[in-house]
């Protein structure tokens, strides 16, 4: 393929005309840009979810506060959970899947670039759909777990739950589509020599998560479909009067819900597994065991769901089995903790901001993990269930684990994504405010919980021993607001003001650091041949990796004779100059996603017996969906 000559280097140093402006973002199929879109959108929803938490904590600051009404409070805690799980933490992980997986495995894009764009747009529309109602005080109010029959028409006659059911159904499509895409990408787009057991740990953990997604989302899809049928078409799935079992929803929900917990935490585990070796100047301790532990956690994750339901009385046999399985899953998790510590042990540890967040994850997640093992025992759980002790537990896991890991990832990869460092002083300030704020918020909840404070109450009387702890939690939350403000300021201003970052600002080991920051659209001008787990260390510092046994390529890898030896790429060209075919930008995925969301939203009108309107909206959406798919499939990719 002929190289098209470009007269000046300056012309391709900057982005060309077709790469800027709103339209370029709307039509992008570049995994890095989609990752960036995910990151910004998810951070926005993280702020929304955080704001909801502030309102909740303000209401609970003192006994019998009247800051918000009981009804609003229900909407706030429902949307706080729903937003943080589905609109913030999962998409923040998705931002890293998108941005990093192709870079870490030495690929130029994901397997299905347009499907990737579709996933993002479905997420965005679904997120807007489920978030907007709170502005009109008709937000979902049945908890993020939406227990039926409490969410059936009889007990929740308003449109609130409709938004939740339809919104989650939409978001499920996004997650599933993305998961099929990443499974294919990781299996089939690894650079020559990048065997499964040479993949960076983040890619490995993401790989496990994609399987959790494709297996955990169908049960919730089915459970939501039943609820949707009950609410709109009068079926009996959750109708106790017709003989339905009140536990059906709980089981189906937690069959999804427990793997979902690992969907939220494993990407963060992957991120810190990149950060810790880099700043310890040592390879990850026990790589193989880390991989097997991740797979083990994913697999066992499907056999522990009923520990969320000990209080319903499943009988001694079921309680014992689920209790044992839950205790068992602490083993691979504990293995990871010890391996991270062993990675740092006797390493040349540099306490940078991402490293601090990574270490904080180890410490905070351990606390959350230990309280988790406490309620794996049914008798203990019966004391703790539905109290603030549980709230403390899962916030140590999700804030202390997932969010700390994601912050570590953001500070670590920001130079790769933008070409600039985030400000170190502000980063440190953010870390300490965040760390103190988090512990001030959630540690006292252990006590208020053990003193018997139930979850989800909007007011409480004084003199039950809860006042001080609630006051502490609320002030902790305000500290987190300050911390997050510092982060947001740093995140935004560093894009233009941060110190310029080279290819490999941290001295890391994996492929993504061998290319310019930010990476050019094609990622790798030449696909490198990978010969070990730490190719960049082999290249730059062979002595350090000399003592490490280099694993052999596994049977799933064939060698491409045209791959080149590992090297650093410093020049920046356009794909056109290099003759690398790139996918065409297209708005078809957006159009298709919009059609699908329109189709789903037509159901809303059934609530007011507006059958004709519902049919019109649904059929219009379906026509857009089918037309969009047709246009999509018949248009060439590149």
């Amino acid at each position: 393929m002929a190289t098209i000559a470009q007269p000046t280097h300056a012309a391709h140093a900057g982005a060309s005309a077709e790469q800027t402006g709103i339209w370029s973002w709307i039509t992008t199929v570049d995994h890095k840009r989609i990752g960036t879109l995910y990151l910004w959108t998810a951070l926005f929803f993280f702020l929304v979810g955080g704001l909801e938490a502030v309102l909740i904590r303000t209401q609970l600051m003192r006994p019998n506060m009247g800051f918000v009404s009981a009804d609003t409070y229900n909407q706030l805690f429902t949307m706080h959970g729903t937003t943080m799980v589905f609109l913030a933490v999962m998409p923040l992980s998705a931002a890293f899947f998108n941005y990093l997986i192709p870079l870490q495995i030495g690929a130029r894009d994901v397997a299905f670039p347009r499907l990737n764009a579709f996933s993002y747009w479905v997420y965005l529309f679904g997120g807007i759909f489920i978030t907007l109602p709170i502005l009109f005080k008709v937000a979902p109010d049945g908890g993020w777990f939406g227990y039926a029959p409490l969410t059936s028409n009889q007990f929740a006659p308003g449109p609130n739950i409709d938004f939740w059911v339809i919104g989650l159904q939409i978001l499920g499509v996004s997650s599933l589509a993305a998961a099929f895409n990443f499974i294919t990408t990781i299996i089939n787009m690894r650079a020559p020599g990048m065997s499964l057991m040479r993949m960076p740990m983040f890619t490995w953990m993401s790989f496990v998560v994609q399987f959790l997604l494709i297996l955990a989302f169908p049960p919730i899809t089915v459970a939501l479909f039943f609820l949707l049928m009950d609410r709109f078409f009068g079926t009996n799935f959750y109708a106790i009067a017709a003989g339905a079992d009140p536990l059906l929803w709980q089981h189906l929900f937690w069959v999804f819900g427990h793997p979902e917990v690992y969907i939220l935490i494993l990407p963060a585990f992957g991120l810190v597994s990149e950060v810790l070796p880099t700043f310890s100047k040592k390879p990850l301790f026990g790589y193989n065991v880390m991989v097997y532990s991740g797979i083990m956690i994913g697999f066992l994750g499907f056999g522990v769901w009923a520990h969320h339901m000990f209080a319903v009385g499943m009988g001694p046999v079921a309680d014992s089995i689920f209790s044992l399985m839950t205790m068992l899953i602490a083993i691979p998790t504990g293995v990871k903790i010890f391996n991270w510590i062993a990675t740092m042990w006797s390493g040349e540890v540099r306490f940078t901001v991402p490293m601090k967040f990574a270490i904080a994850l180890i410490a905070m997640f351990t606390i959350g993990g230990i309280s988790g093992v406490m309620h794996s025992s049914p008798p203990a759980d019966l004391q703790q269930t539905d109290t603030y002790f549980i709230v403390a537990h899962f916030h140590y896991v999700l804030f202390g684990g997932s969010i700390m890991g994601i912050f570590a990832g953001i500070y670590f990869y920001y130079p790769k994504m933008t070409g600039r460092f985030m400000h170190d002083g502000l980063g440190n300030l953010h870390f300490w405010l965040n760390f103190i704020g988090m512990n001030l918020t959630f540690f006292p909840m252990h006590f208020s919980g053990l003193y018997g404070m139930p979850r989800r109450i909007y007011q409480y009387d004084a003199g039950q021993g809860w006042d001080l702890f609630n006051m502490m939690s609320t002030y902790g939350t305000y500290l987190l607001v300050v911390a997050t403000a510092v982060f947001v300021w740093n995140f935004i201003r560093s894009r233009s003001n941060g110190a310029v970052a080279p290819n490999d600002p941290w001295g890391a080991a994996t492929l993504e650091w061998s290319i310019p920051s930010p990476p050019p659209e094609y990622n790798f001008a030449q696909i490198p041949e990978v010969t070990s787990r730490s190719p960049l260390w082999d290249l730059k510092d062979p002595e350090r990796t000399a003592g490490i046994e280099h694993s052999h390529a596994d049977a799933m890898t064939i060698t491409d004779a045209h791959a080149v030896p590992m090297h650093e790429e410093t020049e920046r060209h356009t794909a056109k100059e290099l003759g690398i075919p790139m996918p065409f930008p297209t708005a078809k995925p957006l159009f298709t996603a919009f059609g699908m969301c329109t189709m789903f939203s037509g159901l809303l009108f059934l609530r007011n017996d507006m059958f004709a309107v519902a049919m019109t909206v649904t059929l219009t959406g379906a026509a857009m969906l089918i037309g969009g798919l047709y246009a999509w499939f018949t248009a060439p990719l590149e």
Partner: protein
Amino acid sequence: MSHDSKHAAHAHPSGATYLKVAAILTIITVIEVWAYYIPALVASPLFNPSLIIMSALKFAIVVLFYMHLRYDHKLFKALFTGPLIIAMGTIMALLFLFGKVAL
């Protein structure tokens, strides 16, 4: 993975094998339906297990021969059997939890 085994992956069975498989599937289906109409068999405690076994056999035959899993890349076997095991385990666990099967 070498090129040889990749080509071996394309060595699908012939039309005659497909016809034989169809005949076996038909015979099993006929036996299943026939058994349904014999009250003595239906009353037997072995009725449900044997029906499930026959059904599983048909399931396996279609997957192995018509979906070529017997001849195809081992990756596809893993992609199918992993989820299938989790799905079967979930069904069994749910039936146990709702008192439909005893341990």
